[in-house]
């Protein structure tokens, strides 16, 4: 019961008034529903990719090499690791360990940025060395760059958001009772991670 250990007294105490508690419920539910619809967006593109992949041209299509699994595995571990650090950032916040929270958040941002760097490296390699492009490489380029690019954009947004969280936390915007921004950031970051589990398996492992 992590929550109980910091929320002393009733929900009315310490500035977490009834209005905040109820509004937080609404925002939480709204945010989860937003993630659901975002998930549908990814699912649609994943469906498109699998549909095109099975349309009889073989995979990878002629003229295109397999993706580099070793590098992707390493890069994925960076992102998965950032999921774990983010989880502990929220845990530490709930337990009131502010400095540990800040360090975990910083680790998360570094790992997320590292993943983006790895993806940039992979893109460059594909485009420069293997002449694979978004528009000129048939359904491979279309599905790979669209899906991973969309995911990369989500990671980028996440890194920006976590940086804002870091600054806000340093400025004392969040309190022991009112920290929905941190919860939402954690939910979003986990979501981005989990999408990558799916993308990693369908692009690199099958």
């Amino acid at each position: 019961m992590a929550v109980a250990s910091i929320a002393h007294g009733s929900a009315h105490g310490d500035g977490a008034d009834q209005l905040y508690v109820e509004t937080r419920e609404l925002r939480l539910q709204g945010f989860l529903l937003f993630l659901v619809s975002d998930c549908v967006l990814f699912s649609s593109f994943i469906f498109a990719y699998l549909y095109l992949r099975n349309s009889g041209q073989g995979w990878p299509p002629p003229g295109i090499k397999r993706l580099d699994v070793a590098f992707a595995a390493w890069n994925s571990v960076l992102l998965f690791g950032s999921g774990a650090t983010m989880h502990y950032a929220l845990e530490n916040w709930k337990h009131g360990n502010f400095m540990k929270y800040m360090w975990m958040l910083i680790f998360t941002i570094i790992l997320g940025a590292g993943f983006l760097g790895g993806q940039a490296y992979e893109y460059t390699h594909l485009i420069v060395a293997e002449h694979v492009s978004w528009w000129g490489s048939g359904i491979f380029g279309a599905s790979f760059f669209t899906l991973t690019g969309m995911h990369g954009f989500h990671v980028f947004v996440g890194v920006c958001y976590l940086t804002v969280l870091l600054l806000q936390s340093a400025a004392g915007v969040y309190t022991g009772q009112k920290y929905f921004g941190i919860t939402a950031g954690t939910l979003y970051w986990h979501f981005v991670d989990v999408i990558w589990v799916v993308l990693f398996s369908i692009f690199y492992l099958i």
Partner: protein
Amino acid sequence: MSIESAQMTHAGGIAGHIHPEPQGFVRRYVFSIDHKIIGIQYIITAFVFFMLSGLLAETIRTQLLNANGGFVSPETYNEVYSVHGSAMVWLVVIPLLTGGFGNLIFPLQIGARDVAFPWLNMLSFWIFPVAGLMLFSSFLMGAPTAGWTEYPPVSLQGSAGTSMWAAAIFLVGVSSTLTGINFVVTLVKMRAPGMTFTRMPLFCWGQFATAPLLMIATTALAAALAALFMERVFGVPFYDPTKGGSPVLWQHMFWFYSHPAVYIMILPAFGIISEVLPTFARKPIFGYKLIAFSSMAIALAGFMVWAHHMFTSGLAPYLQLPFMILTFAIGIPTGIKIFSWTATLWGGKIHLTSAMLFAIGFIALFTCGGITGIFLAAVPYDLDVHGTYFVVAHFHYVLVGGSLMGVFAGMYYWFPKMSGRLLNETLGKIHFWLFFIGFNGTFLPMHWLGIEGMPRWVATYDPQFEFWNRFASVSSYVMGIGILVFFVNVLWSIRAGKKSGPNPWNGRTLEWMIPSPPHYYNFKNIPTVYGLPYDFSHPLPYTGLEEELTDAPPALAAGAH
């Protein structure tokens, strides 16, 4: 859980939280965060688009007066019907029923002060007119020509407006998704104490079944549109078979949205009808629970039948049968609703007001559209009439005879809640009869035109079909005059209509318990609910409404500022 959360609300929470009334014209009526104003904004904007796409419809019918056309060129004709279809679906019917009536009415009916995210609500509204203008401005650069479905590869050949179309519909989709999220949260979390799910008015059930569809299905369409846009603008191959893409992929992605979209367009109309019928028959709705649950069943099943639009598209034959049978099965909950509404009339004290006429007309026309829907679901028969005027007749019966009749019923019923005045009943009845007769004259002949061999999307046609096409065109003018009567009625009644008072129809749902138009805070005190609103022989199932129609100021809770 839901009951607990409803009863949890007390003075310190959202229920007691009254925003200060916004000051100034812009904050009040333009960038308003009040759900009622936003609902009215949706309705006005959508009716403007309705007028524009109605003009496009009359252009279509005028072209088809003669077998070899001649009113506009084939290029223009193709643009006209494509924009007509897209605008009617995305800029008229969906915004009217969800953003419009949804925003305006259901927060009042569940006893809430506003929707869950008022700012988000404002955002979703303001995306909508922008997208609408984008869609209509595509005429300037060559509008899309491949119909509202825009099948590639022909849409890949279309002029620049097709990309604009994709962007515009994408934006409407974003607006719908945000609205859907907003409505689901509002309906789940913000019901008044005692307003359990099984005590919600049926209009709320209609919205509750629709909102998840808005949220989920629209996102799938967004993906399809984004891919089309990328293919057209950047040449990224998704659909072009010469580059390895698949044109059938678009059809899957498009119909995975667009079949649920059909239910987005009809479920809220079901809700409106289920409010109007008991009020004017002065008796409880027949089979409340069956109507509510069949809405949910239809919404759920709507995700599993999309391929029935693709029986001729080269779908694997073994896939056709499950889609056919599931589609037939949707007829069962729909039939239950129709029978229940008919039974609601039995033994009533029926007041044949304009709203009631439109509700009864809705049942008559929607049933016809539903039956032809069964025809189209049967694979062997669909292989005959798919892509013909039979399909055009079918979906106009469902969308115009169904959804739009529902919209008009709602307009006559809830106009007092928007303006404080009643619409003129005489003009309303003229509107109904012109519209009803004109509608049937326009779309009934299309059934046999299609069966005998007139395909869709044609600017010219075989001379043997000329008589019935002329008949349809002339009838469509009658329908158009009916709609003009409606617009005149609205414009006249806003200024000079009879004052309605809070409850002109003796309605029993919560929106009638407060003044017309309601205060910006809706309720002075959030009421407590004890039962269904449809028991006419019982006292009203609410407490806490005593001060609503008095001059007493609203009770401000501690949390208010």
